[in-house]
C-alpha cells in the first residue's frame, strides 16, 4: 500500500525537544514540506533565532546560521546578498522578532530584502519561562505580568502581519494558524505562496503563524490548541494582508 503521508526530506528524522502540543513542530514540518515542494533543500540557508526554535540546525536537513537575538533578518540580508542564488528564510519567535529585533525586521522588510520570514507568535517568551512579549494578550498572566497585561501600561498586542504589510518593501504578508485541519491546510498554502515570492525573486515575504505554548500558558495541549482558535484568532485575525502580485 503506498504511503501517502510521510516526513518531508528537508526535516531530519530526529525527535524534537519541543513540549507536548507545541506548534513549533507543526510549523517546522510545513516549512520543510514547502522547501521539498520547491526543490530548494540543496540551496536553502535557514537563519535561526534565539528562543525555543534555536535548534533549527538540529531539525532541518539544510545549512543554518544561528543569529544573535532578534538579528536574524540582518543576518539573512547578508547571506542573501552574498549568495543571491540561495534560498534564505528566518524562523523567529515573537520575543525575538517583535521585541528585541523590532528594528531589524522593520528595516529588512522596508528594504524589500529577497528573503522569507517565518514568525511564530505564541504570545510569550517560551524559552526563558513565559515572560510578557509585545504580542501578549491584554489580561494574559505571564511571569512578568502576574496580574495580566494591562493595556494602559503595556500597550495593546502588536499585530506584526498588518504592521509590516504597510511597508512598501513588503510583497507578501499573511497570518496563519495550525490549530485545526482547516487552518493548517490554509497555512500550508500561504507558506508556499511566501516561498514562491522568493523562488521567483519577487521580494520580501512574511508569514506570521499563531502557535500554542502549553507549558508557559499553564494549559494542557488540547486547551492551548483551543485557545489559539478562540482567543488568539479573535484578535490576531487570520488572512492575507498583502499579496502584491496575486501569486
Amino acid at each position: 500500500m503506498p504511503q501517502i503521508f510521510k516526513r518531508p526530506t528537508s526535516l531530519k528524522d530526529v525527535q524534537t525537544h519541543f513540549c507536548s502540543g507545541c506548534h513549533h513542530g507543526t510549523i517546522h514540518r510545513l516549512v520543510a514540506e514547502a522547501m521539498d515542494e520547491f526543490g530548494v533543500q540543496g540551496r536553502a540557508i535557514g537563519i535561526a533565532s534565539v528562543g525555543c526554535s534555536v535548534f533549527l540546525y538540529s531539525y532541518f536537513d539544510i545549512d543554518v546560521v544561528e543569529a544573535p537575538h532578534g538579528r536574524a533578518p540582518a543576518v539573512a540580508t547578508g547571506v542573501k546578498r552574498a549568495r543571491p542564488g540561495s534560498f534564505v528564510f528566518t524562523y523567529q519567535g515573537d520575543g525575538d522578532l517583535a521585541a528585541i529585533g523590532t528594528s531589524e525586521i522593520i528595516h529588512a522588510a522596508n528594504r524589500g530584502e529577497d528573503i522569507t520570514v517565518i514568525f511564530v507568535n505564541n504570545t510569550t517568551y517560551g524559552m526563558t519561562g513565559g515572560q510578557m512579549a509585545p504580542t501578549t494578550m491584554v489580561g494574559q498572566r505571564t511571569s512578568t505580568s502576574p496580574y495580566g497585561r494591562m493595556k494602559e501600561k503595556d500597550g495593546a498586542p502588536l499585530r506584526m502581519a498588518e504592521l509590516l504589510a504597510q511597508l512598501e518593501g513588503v510583497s507578501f504578508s499573511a497570518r496563519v494558524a495550525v490549530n485545526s485541519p482547516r487552518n493548517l491546510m490554509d497555512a500550508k498554502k500561504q507558506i508556499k505562496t511566501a516561498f514562491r515570492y522568493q523562488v521567483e525573486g519577487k521580494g520580501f515575504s512574511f508569514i506570521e503563524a499563531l502557535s500554542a505554548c502549553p507549558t508557559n500558558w499553564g494549559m494542557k495541549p488540547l486547551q492551548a490548541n483551543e485557545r489559539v482558535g478562540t482567543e488568539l484568532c479573535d484578535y490576531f485575525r487570520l488572512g492575507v494582508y498583502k499579496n502584491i502580485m496575486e501569486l
Partner: protein
Amino acid sequence: MPRILIEETRCKGCGLCTIACPRNLIILSERINNQGYTPAQFANDEKCSGCALCAEMCPDVAIEVYR
C-alpha cells in the same frame, strides 16, 4: 484498506490527532512510553479513510498514513 502507523516512541501524547480524526478512531492509551507520555493509539482500524488529517495535525510527525 487505508491505515495509519503511529510511531509510539516519537509520540508526546498531546492528543491533537484524536480531535483531528473525523471518525474518532484515535485515543490516548494508558501506557507510558519512553518519553513518559501516554501515546496515541489507533482504536479502530477498520473505518480509517486514509484522509491523513491526524498526521497533518501531529506536531511530532509521529503518524504515517498508507492508502
